[in-house]
């Protein structure tokens, strides 16, 4: 499974981006990604905050065969369960 991660926004304009195969993720994150792929609706954020200023927007695209999942979060609706994955991918981008 291929993961494409990007983060935009923040106090200064910056785009962080990375792509990774799920097999290259740590075991616990692989499990997490499998869960997202099987139950994507459980991870869709309820709503975005249109009043957010300087916050980050996160985008996660998962592709396996013909199946494509696109998830978008911001700082206030990022599920706790997804945070370790985002943190890992953000570190991989090499951006602060």
């Amino acid at each position, binding site marked *: 499974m291929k993961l494409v991660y990007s983060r935009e926004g923040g*106090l200064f304009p910056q785009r962080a981006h990375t792509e990774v195969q799920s097999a290259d993720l740590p075991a616990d994150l692989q499990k997490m990604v499998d869960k997202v792929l099987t139950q994507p609706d459980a991870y869709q954020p309820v709503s975005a905050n*249109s009043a957010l200023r300087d916050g*980050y927007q996160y985008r996660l695209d998962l592709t396996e065969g013909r199946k494509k999942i696109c998830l978008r979060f911001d*700082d*206030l*609706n990022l599920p706790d369960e997804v945070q370790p994955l985002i943190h890992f991918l953000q570190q991989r981008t090499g951006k*602060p």
Partner: protein
Amino acid sequence: MKKHVGCLCQIIPPFIIDELKKAGVAIPTNTRTISREFRERRADQLALRSSQSALVTPPTKNADRFVYDSNTTQHQRLLLVRKEGGAATVDPIVNTVYENAGIIREYYKTAFNYLSVDNHGADLILNVHFGQNYANAFWDGDEMTFGDGDGEVFINLANALDVAGHELTHGVVQYTAGLTYQGQPGALNEHYADVFGSVIKQVSKKQTAATADWLIGDEIMGPSLQGQALRSMKAPGTAYDNPLMGKDPQPDHMNAIYKGTGDNGGVHINSGIPNKVFFLVATGIETDKAALLWFETLKTLKPTTNFKSFKTAILKQAKKLAVAKRVPADTETVVKESFLAVGL
């Protein structure tokens, strides 16, 4: 008063509370009760303000400060660690953000008789230690939130008065002009946040337009980026140039305006153009007079104001304030020349 977007903060999930307890962090039950009461009280205030009765007798509060520790989670209003009038804590970040919010509140009150973000004395909610190595700060429609940074590229963002001033001013803009966060109106929104972040820093440091460095965020840069900043109002496009952040993309003239879709149409990029105008005007008439002109204009702007109509609005206020002898007589000329210098 504009309709306000409700708070989207999460209730703390039980597993987070368990983790905090395991880590020895005590969460007093009354803290969570207070959090809930805040939300309910603010919802009541917002409902009242949008009703007819509020137009007659708007409720006024005291702009009390409440500092919360997110304890490196991405949860707001997690642990109340200091409130208005409360004793200093052992955490210097908590005390610094509390003091800085007090300086900003006092500035708006003294300079413009404007109380808190909404001019009705709304509580000032400040969250610190948000996220893990979170190198950012934001305003979310209700409150301010600051990350610790990674300690290398950025140090704690709650340390800097201009960053707190920037975020709180997003609240002021929300309750006044309500500038949309896209394209040129969005760049003006960012511009206003930078202007008052910088002005409040200058007032606090007793600087003038000539002695100020006009940098934003220079005090949050970590050891590896010393001497750089997030933005330069004096010389947009020169604040940083390094492999981690890239190169500062801000233009200082309309001939280099960013026309792409990134950053909500360049809200943090094209703000360089009005930022340069403010620097030039402040240099011509002094920072406090320029700040007065900008604040009085803010109250007249529409959510969709672009750079051209912003210039018209500033000139109109310059004339009005000069007649009232609240700014120098040559302000209109200085403003015209400053806008011309950036191609407007």
